[in-house]
């Protein structure tokens, strides 16, 4: 199945893109998608313990399940205001 991955701020810079699509095999979780991404781009791993994640623009946990067509976002610590 295919998911859209969104990356923001420094994560986006490290990856060189803010949006990409990846095929992962079902059943998948956010963790599955992250692991595939880090295997491809090892520099992202430094965010594993500080980032937040979202599925379809709702905050989620790494264990949340991911379905075909979902948008999975990885968010560095926030600095709005």
């Amino acid at each position: 199945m295919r998911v859209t991955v969104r990356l923001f701020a420094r994560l986006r810079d490290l990856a060189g893109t803010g949006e990409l699509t990846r095929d992962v095999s079902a059943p998948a979780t956010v963790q599955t998608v992250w692991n595939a991404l880090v295997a491809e781009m090892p520099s992202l791993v430094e965010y594993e313990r500080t980032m937040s994640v979202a599925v379809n623009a709702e905050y989620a946990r790494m264990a949340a399940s991911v379905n075909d067509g979902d948008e999975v976002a990885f968010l560095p610590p926030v600095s709005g205001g």
Partner: protein
Amino acid sequence: MGVDLVAVTSEVLNLEALTAEISRGAPGDGAVTAFTGLVRDHNQGRRVTFLDYEAYEPLAVRALDRILDEARTLWADTRLGVHHRIGRLEIGEASIIIVAASPHRAHAFAACRYTIERVKQIVPIWKHEHFEGGEVWLEGATADPEDENAKQAAHRIACA
């Protein structure tokens, strides 16, 4: 034509319009408070030249909605609005405006303060700081809207 109570926008923020929207038709109000966050020219010893704000917009709007719900639960008689600007902002420009109205000033002040503290905790917006000699992504809090400790910390600051 009404003004949205929550907005994430690249347009210049309009405090007057948001205040008018919050204050409209509420003769029971005793207080309106406003907070404006500005882009300042220095940060951690660096001379800041401008900021570029990035947002995950749909989630940022939802997070702002959630914060206003929390504030209205804590101070049930308050009405609130919050607008966050994104994109390139020059020194002195407003990055965020928050307006709170209530029959009681203590509630209006507290709800306003609570909102900005929570924005810094859970809204997916990032500052890309450009300064003399370089640029850096600022990173503050790991966003977790369910984190009760963070919520309580914001509440304590709001009531201090």
